[in-house]
């Protein structure tokens, strides 16, 4: 015959076990920050009327004394060093031959109102080749996949340091690809490799597809935009941000200009 204490102990033990089992079952959370899909967020997708769409173009000029790029000593990583016939140079301030500034991120900051845009299913590719990030500065839409490739086959880790988003720090010890994405708009998220301290990239996350990065001619073009008034922001990792307000009518092409550099404000 079970005594009073036996019964009580049994009840308590069973309850405890059930509780612990429930905790164990419920506690197993998601196993890592996996990439989200490329489908639309479910709200009404914007339809931009191509017949009335406008364009904003421009260029980013550089003013002031040229900043000398330094050679990067990659001798400690022969796999990467061997990929270069001339020593690779630092990329913080790259001035084009025509006096414009490369690697400036331009995007529409305000003016799109309540329009929403589907998340592209195509990923953006970030490649680590020759112990450098390609591209150095790039943009993605919220939720869009970033496919990170290691083309070197030596250990790289991609350490993201966002302030608004949840970051990640993943390693790629061999030639491989990993996919990640960001869920919150944020400009200029640094990406670093802790193994190769000279490696640096910046990703900006926006809710719409109207962004660009200045290339070899320093120019950018944002299109097809609905007619209206926009605030366009330019971002550079050394020189910070600058904004311009511009109004475009139907089928109009407006041109704006930014200037960054030591002499600029």
């Amino acid at each position, binding site marked *: 015959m079970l005594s009073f204490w036996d019964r009580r102990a049994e009840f308590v033990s069973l309850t405890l076990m059930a509780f612990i089992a429930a905790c164990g079952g419920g506690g197993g959370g998601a196993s890592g920050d996996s990439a989200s899909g490329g489908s639309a967020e479910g709200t009404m997708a914007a339809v931009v009327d191509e017949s009335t769409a406008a364009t904003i173009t421009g260029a980013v000029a550089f003013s002031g004394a040229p900043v000398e790029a330094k050679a990067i*000593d990659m001798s400690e990583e022969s796999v990467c060093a061997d990929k270069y016939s001339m020593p690779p140079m630092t990329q913080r301030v790259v001035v084009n031959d025509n006096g414009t500034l490369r690697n400036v991120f331009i995007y529409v900051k305000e003016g799109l109102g309540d329009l929403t845009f589907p998340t592209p299913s195509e990923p953006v590719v970030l490649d680590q080749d020759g112990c450098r990030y390609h591209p150095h500065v790039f943009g993605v839409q919220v939720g869009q996949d970033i496919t990170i490739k290691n083309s070197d086959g030596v250990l790289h880790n991609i350490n993201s340091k966002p302030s608004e988003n949840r970051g990640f720090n993943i390693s790629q010890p061999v030639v491989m690809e990993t996919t990640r994405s960001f869920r919150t708009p944020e400009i200029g998220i640094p990406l670093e490799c*802790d193994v190769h301290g000279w490696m640096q990239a910046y990703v900006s996350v926006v809710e719409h597809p109207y962004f660009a990065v200045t290339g070899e001619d320093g120019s950018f073009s944002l299109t097809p935009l609905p007619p209206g008034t926009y605030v366009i922001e330019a971002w550079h990792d050394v020189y910070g941000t600058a904004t311009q307000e511009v109004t475009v009518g139907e089928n109009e092409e407006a041109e704006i200009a930014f200037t960054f550099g030591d002499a600029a404000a």
Partner: protein
Amino acid sequence: MNWLPPALSTYAADIDRIFYVILVITGIIFVAVEVTLIVFMIKYRGREGRKAYYIEGNTKAEVIWTVTPAIIVLALAFASQDVWSRLKNPDRFPSDALTFSVEAKQFEWNFTYPGIDGVLGNGDDFTIRNQLHLPVGQPVVVHTSSIDVIHSFFIPVFRIKQDIVPGMVIPVWFEATETGEFELACAELCGLGHYRMRARVFVHSQEDFASWMAEQS
């Protein structure tokens, strides 16, 4: 026997000597114990109708095998003491040493050199990632620090190892006896890149080192 890496610092041979002394002593004890064990297993294997020798102990034996190990180990302790103090006590570091510093971080070593004026902290200091350059035949003191987690400064051929603790600046010293290129490894688990937190150690001739230093400044 060349299990050990080459001994290329002024105190490496002292460390190795301690290893060999302990190896010989423990080797003798090892052979004695294992041979005794095997001999006993064979000689005293069970036989039908026999009993073992009924004895509960022997005080004299106990004393012998208490005192003998005590003497051996205490001798070993005293024998190692001076080497330890010479290597790790900052008061006994060579006074004529060059001074560098290294800042460890996940996952690289940033060495700061004093420049041609030979003094750290002046304007001509320069920092190089993952390369330790030093002249042969000259003591060097490296002030180690970390900006994140515990790392450990390990140069096998010099036989030096020192954990690097964030919040502390811990000096190490060594004097290379041969020129060449060697390796520095991190010897304390510090994260995903720990296994690859490697620096190259370049021991130059004194002239080459001087010209290297002038070039870099």
